[in-house]
């Protein structure tokens, strides 16, 4: 299980390939992998967005991501999990977050990945400040998945 806060750009597909290659002891054990990648858009609430700054509370963020993965491990039979979350200056089309879960069967993989990203969004202390053409604004809240 790996949790990482990243200050620079990352390629989620390369990260996944690298991570899975290191799961040598688990080869042949998992039958399902689910992946969620959250990417920055160039629009929000009807406005053009040119970039954003993603702030976090160092240490508390890692602590809560760890809590969330431990909770998921108690609810589902997970062979492994990977979470990478970007902080700092981010531009449209940049990946912001990667969540992946490896399980024996697909139902658990879908449910666990959903749990990880939803709990991350509602409990991990991150904040987004968007850069609009004429001003900056804080994103006020995450809306529920729908």
């Amino acid at each position, binding site marked *: 299980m790996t949790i990482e806060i990243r200050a620079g750009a990352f390629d989620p597909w390369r990260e996944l390939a690298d991570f899975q290659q290191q799961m040598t002891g688990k080869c042949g054990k998992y039958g399902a992998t689910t992946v969620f990648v959250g990417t920055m858009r160039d629009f929000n609430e009807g406005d053009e967005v040119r970039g954003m700054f993603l*702030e976090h509370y160092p240490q508390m963020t890692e602590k809560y991501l760890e809590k969330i993965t431990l909770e998921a491990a108690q609810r589902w039979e997970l062979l492994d999990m990977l979470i990478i979350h970007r902080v700092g200056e981010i531009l449209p089309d940049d990946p912001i977050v990667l969540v992946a879960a490896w399980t024996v069967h697909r139902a658990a993989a879908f449910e666990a990945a959903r749990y990880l990203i939803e709990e991350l*969004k509602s409990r*991990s202390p991150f904040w*987004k400040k968007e850069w609009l053409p004429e001003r900056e604004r804080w994103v*006020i809240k*995450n809306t529920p998945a729908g």
Partner: protein
Amino acid sequence: MAITVKFFASLRERMECEGVAIDAQYARTIAEVWQQVAGGEPLPADLLMAVNMEYAEPDSVVQDGDEVAFFPPVTGGGHDH
């Protein structure tokens, strides 16, 4: 000794500082910590708070050496809100 108080995101900008230290003898709960740092402003209803990096409530007890943080609702994850 003291209680370390931190502010994040829009609250940090509004307070015009990242944090302060207060004398522990003047605050027994988070609400009292807020009174010490906010200059009479009532505790905003949607403000989140933590003691030693665990979410807490206004009546949570604080003690010497604790780290208390105040911050707005969190907005991590993808840009899909």
